[in-house]
C-alpha cells in the first residue's frame, strides 16, 4: 500500500497517571490531509491522546513522530511543532478579555500584523456566526457561544493539524451542522489533517475518513466507517457502535460463504443465516444493526433470508425514528421510521415479521475470556 506520508505516527504509546494506565500501547498513523475520528466511551482516554499529540503532555513511554520527525525534547522545538497544530479543548476555556482578544491571541503570539489579525478575526467570527460579538466580555457568553469562540480561536490559525475534542458538544443541531460543514470544508480546501474525539457517532461517520475506536485505553479497531460500524471486531466494539442486537449462538452449518448460526442454548433454537467464513462449531455472536431490520405486518410473506415472526414488546420514538423492541424467541431491536411505525400500527402486543438480510449479519467469534 502506498500511502501518503504520515503526518502523525504513534508507536507503542503508553500513558500513566499515577499507577493508572490510561493509554495502553497505541499504534496509529495518520496521513497528511486525513480526517480521523476517535470514538469511545467516557474515560477511554480520547482527551489524553489528543493532549499527548498536541505535545501538552509527555507520554510515559512510546514514540510520536510529527511530520515524520520524532518529537524533540527541547521546549523551543516543541513550540515550533505545536504552532503547526491547534487543539480545541473539551471544556472551552476563554481568557478573561474580549471575544476579539480571545480569537486574536494565537495570531498575535505568532507575530501576525494587527491589520491582518483584524481581518482574519472578523472573517472567522462571521463564519462561526458570531459577527458583532467582537467587543463582548468572553466570560459572559452562553455555552454554545463560548464553544464557537473556542472553535474560531483555533481555526483562525489555519493549522496544519487540527485536533478537536468534542467540538460540538454544547451546540444545538443547527449550529452543529453549520460547524460540521465548516470543518468539512476546511478539511477539503486546506487539506488540513484532523483528529477529532467525538461521542456523536454520526458526526464521526459524516466527517471522518477513518475511525478509531478507543476503549479502556486500547485502540481496539480502526477502519473506515463501514468497517467500524458494520463489522466491529469484537462484542465490545459492536456494543459501543450501536449494534444493539448481539445474539449468542454457534455456527451449525457453513456453505458458499453463508454460515448458519443457531441461537440460544436449546437444541431446536432458531437459526440465523449470515454472510461469514466462521467454521462450523465455533461459538459466535451474531450482530445486527437495529436499522437493518425491517418490520412488516404479520401477514407479509418475506423473501429475506432471515425472517422471524414476533410480538412488539415496546416502542419508543425519538426524532424521525422509532425504536421497536420485538420478541421473536430472542429479543430484537429494530429502528424504523416514525412513518412506518404509524402505517404498520406498531404498538405493544402487535404481531409483526422482522426481516433482515444475511449480509446485514456480522458474526464475531466469541472470545474465550468472558
Amino acid at each position: 500500500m502506498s500511502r501518503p506520508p504520515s503526518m502523525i505516527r504513534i508507536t507503542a504509546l503508553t500513558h500513566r497517571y499515577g499507577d493508572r494506565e490510561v493509554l495502553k500501547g497505541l499504534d496509529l498513523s495518520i496521513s497528511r490531509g486525513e480526517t480521523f475520528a476517535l470514538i469511545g466511551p467516557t474515560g477511554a482516554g480520547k482527551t489524553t491522546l489528543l493532549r499527548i499529540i498536541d505535545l501538552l503532555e509527555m507520554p510515559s513511554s512510546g514514540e510520536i513522530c510529527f511530520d515524520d520527525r520524532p518529537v524533540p525534547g527541547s521546549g523551543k522545538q516543541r513550540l515550533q511543532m505545536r504552532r503547526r497544530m491547534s487543539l480545541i479543548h473539551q471544556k472551552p476555556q476563554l481568557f478573561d478579555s474580549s471575544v476579539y482578544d480571545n480569537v486574536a491571541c494565537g495570531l498575535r503570539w505568532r507575530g501576525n500584523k494587527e491589520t491582518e489579525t483584524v481581518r482574519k478575526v472578523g472573517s472567522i467570527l462571521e463564519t462561526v456566526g458570531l459577527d458583532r460579538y467582537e467587543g463582548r466580555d468572553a466570560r459572559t457568553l452562553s455555552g454554545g457561544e463560548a464553544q464557537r469562540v473556542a472553535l474560531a480561536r483555533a481555526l483562525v490559525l489555519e493549522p496544519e493539524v487540527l485536533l478537536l475534542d468534542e467540538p460540538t458538544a454544547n451546540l444545538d443541531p443547527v449550529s452543529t451542522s453549520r460547524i460540521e460543514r465548516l470543518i468539512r470544508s476546511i478539511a477539503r480546501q486546506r487539506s488540513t489533517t484532523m483528529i477529532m474525539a467525538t461521542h456523536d457517532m454520526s458526526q464521526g461517520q459524516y466527517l471522518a475518513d477513518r475511525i478509531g475506536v478507543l476503549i479502556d485505553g486500547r485502540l481496539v479497531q480502526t477502519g473506515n466507517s463501514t468497517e467500524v460500524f458494520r463489522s466491529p471486531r469484537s462484542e465490545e466494539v459492536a456494543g459501543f457502535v450501536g449494534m444493539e442486537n448481539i445474539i449468542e449462538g454457534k455456527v451449525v452449518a457453513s456453505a458458499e460463504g453463508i454460515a448458519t448460526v443457531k441461537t440460544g442454548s436449546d437444541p431446536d433454537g432458531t437459526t440465523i443465516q449470515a454472510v461469514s467464513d466462521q467454521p462450523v462449531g465455533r461459538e459466535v455472536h451474531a450482530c445486527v444493526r437495529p436499522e437493518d431490520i425491517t418490520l412488516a405486518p404479520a401477514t407479509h410473506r418475506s423473501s429475506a433470508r432471515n425472517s422471524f415472526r414476533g410480538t412488539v414488546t415496546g416502542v419508543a420514538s425519538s426524532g424521525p425514528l422509532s425504536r421497536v423492541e420485538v420478541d421473536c424467541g430472542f429479543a430484537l431491536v429494530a429502528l424504523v421510521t416514525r412513518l412506518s411505525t404509524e402505517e404498520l400500527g406498531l404498538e405493544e402486543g402487535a404481531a409483526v415479521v422482522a426481516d433482515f438480510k444475511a449480509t446485514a449479519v456480522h458474526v464475531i467469534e466469541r472470545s474465550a475470556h468472558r
Partner: protein
Amino acid sequence: MTEIWQGLIRAVQLLVSFDAEVVEIAARTLRIAGTSSLLAAIISLPLGTLIHFRQFRGKGALINIVQTLYFLPTVIVGLFVFVLLSRAGPLGELGILFTPQAMVVGQMVLITPIMLGMTISALSGVRKELLETATSLGASGSQLGLLVLREARYAVLAALLLGFGRALSELGVAMMVGGNIDGYTRMMTGAIWLATQRGDLELALALGIILLFLALVISIVLNRLQQRRPQ
C-alpha cells in the same frame, strides 16, 4: 486624643500650605520607594512566573524560604546591607553607604521576597486548563507568562502594592543604610520617627496622615489602571 485632632489639623495645614520641607521629603520617599519597588517588581514578576511554571527539585523548599523572608525584620535587613556596604565590608569599595542608592538596595532586599512570594501565590490561582489552552494556541513560554500575569492581574497588583507599601512604610533599612540624613536620605518614616523622638507627636501624626494620603492616592490610581480594560 487631642493629639490626633491636632495632628489631623496640622496635616491639613502642611498639605494646603504645601510645606516645602514636607514636599521635599515626600518626593524623596516616593522616588526611593518607587525605585526599589520597580526594581523588585522587575525581578519578581519574571522570576515568579518562571518558578511558577518550572518544575524542579526543591521548588517547594524554595517557596518556603521565600515565604520565610516575609518575616525579615527591617533592622536585620538594614544591618546586613550595612555590613556589606560598610568600608570594611566586601562591597565597601562602592562607597554608597548612606546614600539613596544604598537605601534602594536595602529596600529591594526587604521587599523582593514579598513581591516574589505573593506573585507566585497569585499565579497559582490561575487555572491549569487556561494555560494549557494558551499553550495549544501556540503561546511561547514568555507569552504564557504574560498571559498568566494578566489573568491574575488583580492578585499580582495586590502583591506589588504590598511590596511598595512595605518600602514606603519601613524605617529600619532607611535608618541603618541611609542614615536618616536631613535633606539627603530622610524619608517620611524617618521624619516621623524623628518627630516622635523629639516628643512632637502632633507632627509625627501629621506626617503619618500625609503618608497615608499619598498611599491612598497611589492605590486608587493603581486600582483604576488595573480595572481599565486593555483594548
